[in-house]
């Protein structure tokens, strides 16, 4: 149609337009495989086209930004428009997550699938209301049972990855790297004990 007006059309241009269309109607991030299946094209060409889209839809250039998140690709609003977006929509998913909810979320994200008794054992307090709240927000979801008749287990959802801007759970920092504080405390104790002994 209007293609006839263009002297040269880049061969991936048409594919890129198809992918733009898919991304603008999708309700969650789309993987390269999903994009390839819907556009009936090869994954390599899809990757090339995504590169083209990423360069067009980026911060500062466009109000729409392509991001790699939750194992796929999705459009989001540019950060410079955050205040306008805040006036338009609420953010019920992430608003007011309590300390208990964050700790429960951390346990599920790192150890999931994991049951409520297992979460309670780690946190030292019952996890029922924190788990129910996180399910309600869609950040965690049921993932089968431990065994026949066992407790229900939970895992983090793609929405969790999306809200926290993670391309996948593997992007979470290693637990061991996070806990250096406890070593510090121990050496502080030993140091003080040493001073006393001297």
């Amino acid at each position, binding site marked *: 149609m209007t293609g006839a007006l263009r002297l040269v059309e880049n061969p991936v241009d048409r594919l890129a337009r198809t992918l733009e269309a898919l991304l603008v109607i999708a*309700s969650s991030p789309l993987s390269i495989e999903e994009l390839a299946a819907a556009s009936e094209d090869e994954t390599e060409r899809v990757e090339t086209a995504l590169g083209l889209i990423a360069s067009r839809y980026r911060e500062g250039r466009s109000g729409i930004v392509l991001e790699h998140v939750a194992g796929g690709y999705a459009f*989001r609003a540019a950060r410079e428009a955050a205040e306008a977006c805040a006036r338009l929509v609420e953010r019920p998913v992430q608003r007011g997550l309590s300390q208990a909810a964050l700790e429960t979320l951390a346990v599920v*994200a790192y150890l999931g699938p994991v049951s409520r008794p297992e979460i309670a054992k780690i*946190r*030292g307090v019952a996890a029922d209301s924190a788990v129910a709240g996180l399910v309600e927000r869609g950040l965690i979801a049921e993932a089968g049972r431990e065994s026949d*008749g066992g407790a229900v287990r939970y895992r983090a959802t793609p929405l969790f990855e999306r809200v926290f801007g993670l391309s996948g759970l593997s992007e979470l920092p290693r637990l061991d790297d996070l*806990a250096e504080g406890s070593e510090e405390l121990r050496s502080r104790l030993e140091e003080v004990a040493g001073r006393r002994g001297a």
Partner: protein
Amino acid sequence: MSAVAVRDLDLDLDSFEGPFDLLLTLVLKDELELADVEVAGVVAAFVERLAERASPDLEACGEFLVLMAALLELKARGLFPDEDELAFDDLDPEEAAGELAERLALYRRFKAAAAWLEERLAAESDRYFRLGPAPLAPVPERPLAPQDPVALASALRQLAADPPAPSLSHLELRFPPVSLFLDRFRAVLSRRRQFVFDREVDSLSRVEQAVAFLALLELRKVGEIKLGQPAPFEPITVWSAS
């Protein structure tokens, strides 16, 4: 530092800033989640204060031990919500200590992970995206594929199956209340003028012996008993103070 000053011990923890006394009050009023209190931080603050002195203050140490025991008891109780169902059981002391240390270390890691998530959320607060379908997206017809009713029956069978017996090994590290031993020692001293502590607690588990010892310190602190020990590691004899 006098014994009284223990209660004024200034704390600067992640979850709490102020005197020890206030921390205990808040915990007892349920205004502070005990799971959030780093007991190790309290111990570190106390040991640092103690190190400033030329000679050890046994009175202050005794007071501190009793208060910390109370704190630990509360914290331990929080770990075992349905204590009535659990039987007193001995756990190899080394296993118990190892289990407790491991669990505290694990909790610390997840607390750090939660802090990381919180920071991340703040950093991503200007990222907005649409939840749910686009306004003009084509509406799909999604008929459910034919299903097998046997799946329903087996789902109910699963729900009717006896739950697997849970491993209770991690629950066996239990602290009996200090009050149990307060009552017990008072009862013994109402019958006899004196008794030998070691013989009295001989049949108990290590954890129970530790709590019994704390009860002994408590009775000594309030002046109900006198203690005697011929030499370190010798049996402790307990007399009624009256």
